[in-house]
């Protein structure tokens, strides 16, 4: 099977993120591979182990390639970085357009992606790539069983109060949800391989795209303003004695915090 996995390097949840200006964030230099993408890589590797073939990790990022190295260290065969100065300030749609431009002439059976990136939590790129490519997609799967000879996959996804079983013809795109698998811990042998791997770089001109189609120029979503989270209000001490303090607590939870 020919499998592509879309991956993204995201800020570590422990990284300090500050609002630098209305449209700019200052992010501490601590990044890691989005966890849902690791689940997608693991799913791809399991299929490769079963059916043979090749797993390629693909990212669109001008700076960070550790997600690609992570993919190689887990066992992926090839790593591709789409990079071009005009891709700066891309939104989810221009990212999807660029990724699909790369993928459109590739002989893939399956594209896997995380259900959402762990920084913007948008969950758009995966489905949008499928739309641009005109292939079916299923979002947020927790089960995957491929029949390679029939070129179809049975997938499971969680729905409210239950699970939904679907059959989907291949090629298709699935986004992967927690529960599908547990991503493997890389063997040090593969880590060494990942440290030395030649990452294939692809620029915009080779994709037949114009700078006006992508990046900030082609983006449908424009950041108007970043706002930091509101500061926590000071602790309110309830001064009344029992049982009045309980009544006061319930009143505050209901009327001020509005949580009950």
């Amino acid at each position, binding site marked *: 099977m020919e499998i592509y996995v879309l991956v993204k390097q995201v800020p570590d949840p422990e990284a300090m993120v500050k609002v630098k200006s209305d449209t700019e964030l200052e992010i501490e230099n601590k990044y890691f591979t989005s966890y849902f993408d690791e689940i997608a890589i693991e799913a791809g590797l399991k299929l490769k182990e079963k059916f043979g073939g090749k797993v390629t990790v693909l990212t669109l990022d001008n700076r960070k390639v550790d997600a690609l190295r992570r993919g190689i260290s887990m066992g992926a065969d090839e790593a591709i970085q789409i990079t071009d100065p005009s891709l700066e300030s891309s939104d989810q749609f221009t990212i999807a357009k660029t990724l699909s431009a790369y993928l459109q002439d590739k002989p893939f059976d399956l594209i896997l992606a995380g259900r959402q990136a762990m920084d913007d939590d948008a969950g758009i790129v995966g489905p949008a790539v499928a739309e641009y490519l005109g292939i079916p997609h299923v979002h947020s799967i927790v089960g995957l069983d491929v029949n390679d000879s029939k070129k179809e996959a049975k997938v499971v996804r969680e729905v409210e109060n239950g699970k939904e079983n679907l059959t989907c013809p291949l090629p298709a795109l699935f986004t992967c949800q927690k529960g599908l698998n547990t991503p493997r811990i890389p063997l040090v*042998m593969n880590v060494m391989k*990942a440290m030395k791997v030649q990452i294939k770089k692809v620029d915009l001109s080779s994709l037949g795209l114009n700078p006006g189609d992508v990046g900030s120029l082609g983006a449908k979503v424009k950041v108007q303003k970043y706002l930091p989270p509101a500061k926590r209000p000071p602790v309110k001490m309830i001064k009344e004695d029992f049982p009045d303090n309980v009544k006061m607590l319930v009143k505050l939870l209901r009327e001020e915090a509005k949580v009950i």
Partner: protein
Amino acid sequence: MSLDFSFTEEQEFFRQTVRDTVNRLIIPRVKELDEKEEFPWDVWKEFASLGYLGLRHQEKYGGMETDTITQMIFYEELARGSCGFAMSAIMQILMGTYFIARFGNEEIKQRILVPAIKGEKIGTICFTEDQSGSDLGGTRTLATKVDGGWRINGRKQWVTNGPIAEFATVMATVDTKLGLKGLNFYLIEKKTAQRDGFAVGQRLHKLGSRCSVTGELVLDNVFVPDENFLGEEVGKGVQYAGDILNEVRVMTGMNALAIAKEAMEDARQYANNRVAFGNPISKYQLIREKFAKFWAWYEASRTLLYRCAWMIQSKIPCTNECMLAKYHSTEMCMYAVEEAMRIYGGNAFCSEYPVQRFWRDAKFLLYGGGTHEVLCDYLGRIYCKD
């Protein structure tokens, strides 16, 4: 001359990968490992299966042949998870297998080194005795030449992994009167040595690094065949030990670096949340000073340690620098864990918070690679050109 202190993108990736591995394999278990005070076989097996035990050994034996800086990054990140587990793993990677890889014949390497790299056979090295440790010249374990090999008699103490080791590199003297000039290394294999007088003695219950099992090994007329003599020439043991001591000292410093950082990161979070007199205690200058001092000393230690790693890698003589780095980083660590305990106030005194574990673990680092009293005496003498 270029002066570049940055890590490469590949080294940063390696660090992140080890960090992630430690976060997943070790950190969720660290409290339990400390409390149980047992060797964590399940963690060991999973960790060994990833291949890290071969980090510095040749590929043909299953190793990775990484460079010194990569190894030091690994030691730093591993100790961040659990100092005890790091002690056991680093014993296997570095001291416990070094002389076998260097002097063992091919048959020994296949029999001992290959399974050691897979984590199937646990190894150790034994220097310390009741009257010798940093003072290796005081070694009393005696190696007597006999037909086809040697007979070893003595008791070794403070042996990391000792109670579970399948093989041990033992330092012994051919004559106690020769001091440092009589010392050699001998490979003792438990399976065959047990037929003679090899036995595990008392197991120690330690203040910290508790999941690394430590104890005494008793050698009562144990026969060691000639091929298990680890060296090219009799009496060169101290010289051979010196060849690895720089790495051992910088490695110890890396452990100190990791514990110090973990302790102070933990204390920082606590200080930002613990409110006293209406403010988080991190708003008070006396608390802030602790962080400022730590930060300055931590950065100095880190720079010095990685400079030493670079010097070892570049084969630049650096014995004094490595001693300074070990001394500075471990003292910095003592400061960090002590001040972290003070920042925690009374809460430091209960096992609910990890800060007491950092404090206990850190103390173990004062002794390996030479006590600070011995190091300082030597360094002072060198500085004064005495």
